């Protein structure tokens, strides 16, 4: 048996054997949140897109319940415009850990005429209805999301346990105060609680932890040659979803993705960071937030995220 003496440089310059590093502290907090939900809810589910934040959530859940299996299923809202590399990663991961995966398909809703394609081709705002209906149909009472408070101003006021009504709506004025680490998961039938175990992580923390734990990510997070075209100041990947349009020219560039979402609104950034060490160095030096750099959906208005959250978005 080994003792892990994680000696950390404390602020005053002395080493304290009992101070946790910031990654250990964040990991412990996230594990505590997963275990609280396992203890208090009947039917929790993890939103899993194959993006790095959801991969991190799954990794933490696996650690929280080891050596037993994760007591939650996964749920993916598939926009129909997902990166193929990411879908392959998703399916491989589900098989590897013997998990149950639920998929809600935006394409189904469009085919049935319930949802209409937007003129700009982006399907991110269309995810809300399929997500809400899947939560209702499967009677999920806790839904883990990978949202982080550092991502966006409206998210900075999100609770760890965020109560949603039967329409999945979020009302910032009716959120419960969260004191100490005493989370309140009470909810009425039909309501559910969105739970954000990564609330206190930043983008840099996520990457440092992925490096420390040796977590595998879809390859598109690392620099690679890709055919892209410019739109709204971002590099988008051509595809059936509706690009490029006339006047938009395709070129080959060395790029990587900082976030992974719908292909229509997730941009790549110029980068030669082809290893995790280079990615961390690049983020530490970056002067743009990951959403500012790569998400067209958040640029729509100053309150774009707040509006989508109120309607039941992740």
């Amino acid at each position, binding site marked *: 048996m080994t003792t892990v003496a994680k000696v950390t440089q404390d602020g005053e310059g002395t080493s304290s054997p009992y101070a946790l590093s910031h990654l250990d502290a964040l990991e412990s907090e996230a594990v505590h949140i997963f275990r609280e939900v396992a203890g208090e809810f009947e039917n929790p589910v993890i939103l899993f897109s194959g993006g790095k934040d959801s991969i991190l959530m799954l990794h933490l859940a696996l650690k929280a319940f080891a050596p*037993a299996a994760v007591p939650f299923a996964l749920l993916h809202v598939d926009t129909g415009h997902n990166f193929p590399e990411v879908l392959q990663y998703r399916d491989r991961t589900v098989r590897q850990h013997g998990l149950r995966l639920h998929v809600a398909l935006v394409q189904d809703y469009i085919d049935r005429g319930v949802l209409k394609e937007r003129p700009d081709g982006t399907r991110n705002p269309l995810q809300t209805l399929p997500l809400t209906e899947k939560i209702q149909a499967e009677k999920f009472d806790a839904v883990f999301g990978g949202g982080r408070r550092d991502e966006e101003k409206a998210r*900075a006021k999100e609770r760890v346990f965020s109560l949603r009504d039967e329409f999945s709506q979020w009302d910032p004025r009716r959120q419960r105060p969260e004191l100490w680490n005493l989370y309140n998961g*009470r909810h009425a039938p039909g309501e559910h609680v969105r739970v954000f175990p990564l609330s206190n992580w930043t983008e840099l923390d996520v990457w440092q932890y992925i490096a420390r734990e040796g977590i595998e990510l879809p390859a598109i997070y690392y620099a690679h040659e890709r055919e892209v075209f410019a739109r709204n100041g971002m590099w988008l990947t051509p595809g059936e979803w509706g690009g490029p349009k006339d006047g938009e020219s395709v070129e080959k560039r060395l790029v990587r993705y900082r976030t992974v979402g719908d292909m229509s609104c997730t941009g790549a950034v110029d980068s030669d960071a082809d290893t995790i060490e280079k990615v961390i160095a690049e983020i530490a030096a970056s002067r743009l937030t990951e959403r500012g750099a790569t998400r067209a959906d958040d640029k729509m208005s100053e309150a774009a995220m707040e509006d989508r959250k109120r309607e039941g978005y992740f």
Partner: protein
Amino acid sequence: MSTITTEQLAATTLLRFATAGSVDDGKSTLVGRLLHDSKSVLTDQLEAVERASASRGQEAPDLALLTDGLRAEREQGITIDVAYRYFATPRRRFILADTPGHVQYTRNMVTGASTAELTVILVDARNGVVEQTRRHAAIAALLRVPHVVLAVNKMDLVGYEEPVFAATAEEFTAYATELGVPEVTAIPISALAGDNVVEPSANMDWYGGPTVLEHLETVPVSHDLAHCHARLPVQYVIRPRTAEHPDYRGYAGQIAAGTFRVGEEVVVLPSGRTTRISGIDLLGEPVDVAWTAQSVTLLLEDDIDVSRGDLIVPAKDAPATTQDVEATVCHVADQALTVGHRVLLKHGTRTVKAIVKDIPSRLTLDDLSLHPHPGRLAANDIGRVKIRAAEPLPVDSYADSRRTGSFILIDPSDGTTLTAGMVGESFAAPEPVKDAAEDDGWDF
């Protein structure tokens, strides 16, 4: 460009702190300045603030806009809710609970302070210690925040005069010390001009102490755990029941206080059964010793009945269990708390039925006067409460353990979080109680 290297960032500690003060004290400007000058504000965020400031006809970017996230806040120029901010320096990672000064200030400040190791209280140098400053000091004292910083702001508007700062610092320190605040650090600043926030001020040669950021970077975050009572609230029982682990039975939880060692004799509360720790799993890795705030799984020598809600403690240092809890509470819900109220009480990982037996007094934070038998507590009221729980609870005094001495009350009908509770005496020092019989400001 940021100059933080990967290696430096990998081994930093985490400091959770809170800020308190009103818009007029320049709190949002201080927070904006900390984020901006520590290079935590990124170009697109700053551009958004510049656009918003320009559209309101302001010449310079209003750093307060960095922290006002919701539309109503930006439109009304107020902060409604606790907002969490993140920034890092080469020495430390910070989580800032930014709490508003006026709307629901008590509820929000109590929320922010509950997880904070440090609170920054702002005053306007021109006004010195005012009623609100005393309220903020009292909340920091009630919540037992270990470190308090008094930031005397707007020093530029008093000619950077040392006596102005010294008088305010002295008055505040005396007041906070009387309330039992263990450590006060007073710093003269100008958030607007940037004096002593991140960079030392060239305008105040007479001040030899740290800047706000230097202090945040160096204040100790770890405690002397040898003197803490060890406590593990059991969250979940891990039973794989697989071919590989047919008999594994582990008790998962986050250590709320102190340290646990393999071989140690422990008692499980409330049942009182005694056993020994046969193993500790630190997220898949066996260890000999674990400490707060690690999330671990304990394995016990004897096959005794342990389930969610139980508390594992050292046999030589177990708290008494009781159904009668006396506590200081902050009421956080819009609906009032009344004598006879039937509630749920969540302590650690255990939630039990309880009834509010008595509300002996309500505390006015402005002057710490006690109002006997108010009958009810409204939103943002602080008071003393006697509660009878349906089952025995292993509670500590909040003074001894912020995690296992705290609880929340929940409305059983709609799930609202009603009240934040702290077991035991309100303040570390004897309460400076004054008779409030002549006060007729409270009607019920």
